[in-house]
């Protein structure tokens, strides 16, 4: 047993070294901008850059629309499958796994060829249309995570009884979904939302190929042209990812209690 614990510490130590050295190195590098002294100059330059603010704002907005679109598509489908069409479950689960099989670059390549300016649905003809197509692409990428989060949330509540009770009280379908089901799976939906946010905020491939002024292409551009700012941006991106994951963890602590509340 003693030797087992020794090796466990060794493995853990090696793992910790591999994962922390790049973070330490990145922090150190990001503070080297001023000669001879550590400073936060790189962060100041980055945060003060108008292009940073614009692209970051654009990506935050795209993420919010992606989350709304994802919820609108996934919640009714997952609810309806639990309630009425369980025979469709394998098909829907298969479809939601497809974005893990088909690389994002292939999906966006398909969009460019199918929805070009000369096509019947010319999304790419206008800037607004391209923005919409980007949000659609992001919703596709986030589909596996959003579906799984919502489906797990629905599993913890008794969908059928809640629906019947609401129907007896005279609720219509819109009321049932927005005022009965959604509040009950809100925490699951929020977990999916934060994961979506973490995926979308720095996404590069789709935004770059659709020529949108998003945060991902901006990061790439800074990386190609600057020395210290990329390291500062990497730390900022890591903190954002960390924030999203912590929020999911905090939310998951509330999940069972609110879902099983008898009222």
């Amino acid at each position: 047993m003693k030797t087992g614990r020794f090796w466990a510490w060794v493995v853990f130590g090696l793992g910790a070294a591999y994962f922390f050295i790049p973070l330490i190195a990145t922090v150190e590098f990001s503070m080297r901008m001023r000669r001879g002294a550590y400073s936060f100059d790189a962060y100041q330059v980055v945060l003060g850059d108008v292009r940073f603010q614009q692209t970051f704002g654009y990506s935050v907005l795209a993420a919010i629309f992606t989350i709304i679109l994802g919820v609108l598509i996934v919640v009714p489908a997952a609810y309806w499958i639990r309630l009425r069409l369980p025979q469709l479950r394998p098909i829907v689960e298969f479809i939601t796994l497809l974005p893990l099989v088909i690389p994002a670059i292939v999906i966006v390549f398909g969009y460019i060829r199918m929805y070009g300016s000369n096509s019947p649905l010319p999304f790419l003809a206008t800037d607004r249309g391209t923005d919409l197509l980007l949000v659609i692409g992001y919703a596709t990428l986030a589909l596996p995570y959003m579906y799984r989060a919502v489906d797990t949330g629905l599993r913890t509540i008794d969908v059928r009884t809640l629906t019947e009770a609401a129907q007896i009280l005279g609720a219509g379908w819109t009321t049932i979904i927005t005022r009965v089901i959604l509040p009950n799976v809100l925490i699951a939906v929020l977990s999916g939302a934060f994961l979506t946010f973490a995926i979308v905020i720095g996404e590069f491939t789709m935004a770059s190929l659709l020529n949108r002024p998003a945060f991902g292409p901006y990061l790439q551009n800074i990386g190609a042209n600057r020395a210290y700012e990329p390291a500062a941006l990497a730390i900022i991106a890591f903190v954002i990812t960390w924030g999203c994951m912590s929020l999911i963890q905090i939310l998951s602590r509330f999940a069972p209690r609110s879902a099983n509340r008898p009222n």
Partner: protein
Amino acid sequence: MTDISLSQRAVADSVPPATARAMRLPTHWLGVAPFFIFTIMFLILPTLYLMLGAFQNDAGEFTLENIAALSQPSIVAAYWISIKVSLASSLIGAFAGLAIAIAIVRGGLPNWIRSATLTFSGVASNFAGVPLAFAFLATLGRLGLATVLLDKILGINIYSSGFNILSFWGLTITYAYFQIPLMVVIIVPAIDGIKKEWGEAAATLGATQAQYWRMVVIPVIWPSFLGTVILLFANAFGAIATAYALTGSSLNIVPILLYAQIRGDVLHNAHLGYAIAFGMIVITGLANVFFIWFRTRSERWLK
């Protein structure tokens, strides 16, 4: 009894047959309609469009020329380096991730280490793309901290001994940063699924520790382990942002070749781009067929 109730129900159902059907069918599908319309329009049709395009020439006629053209040396080399990087990073990620998972679940380490590792793994498995490339340039680039410290303290200049972050090994080590934690996140539940009673039962029957591992633990973990390896493979194979930010276009992996083709038709044949995309779908698709197969095998044990 049952006969009566059955026939009663049949009568009740048959009273308004036409109206019930007409009312029911559309509302029945209404809830899932947005999902299916969305996924067909924005996931399935675009993919099919590319796959069909791979078998057509400019005039729209059926041809195998595009697929045959994939055999030009530069494209084969791109597929080969992509497969090598994905395979190496998924195997390294899988074994390192498994070792870490076993260490934190079974190694007798303090409890906070387990939860801290799982939280960190959740973050690191999503820390990919362009920022990850920056982090590794700051670590193992020519002026990176690890490079400089290795040179100053140990006198090892990794660059003069042939290492380059813009290479197969550089990319593999970088990809491992999201592959290892992904393995940890997926495999820890499988290791948790190994019940203590199994170890006790094996010990009661006189098994040694080695026999217990060889005949109980490994067969139980094996399918989900292999399944995750394949998921990691697909994960690395489609990734482009990290490699592009790290190496520009100096390392010619398939996604970067396709990226350049979409941007500027560098291969001077639009349908060859479709064929490259088709090849990527075939490779990740095959990987996932194995994934699903292994997954169903492992679930038998863990219930």
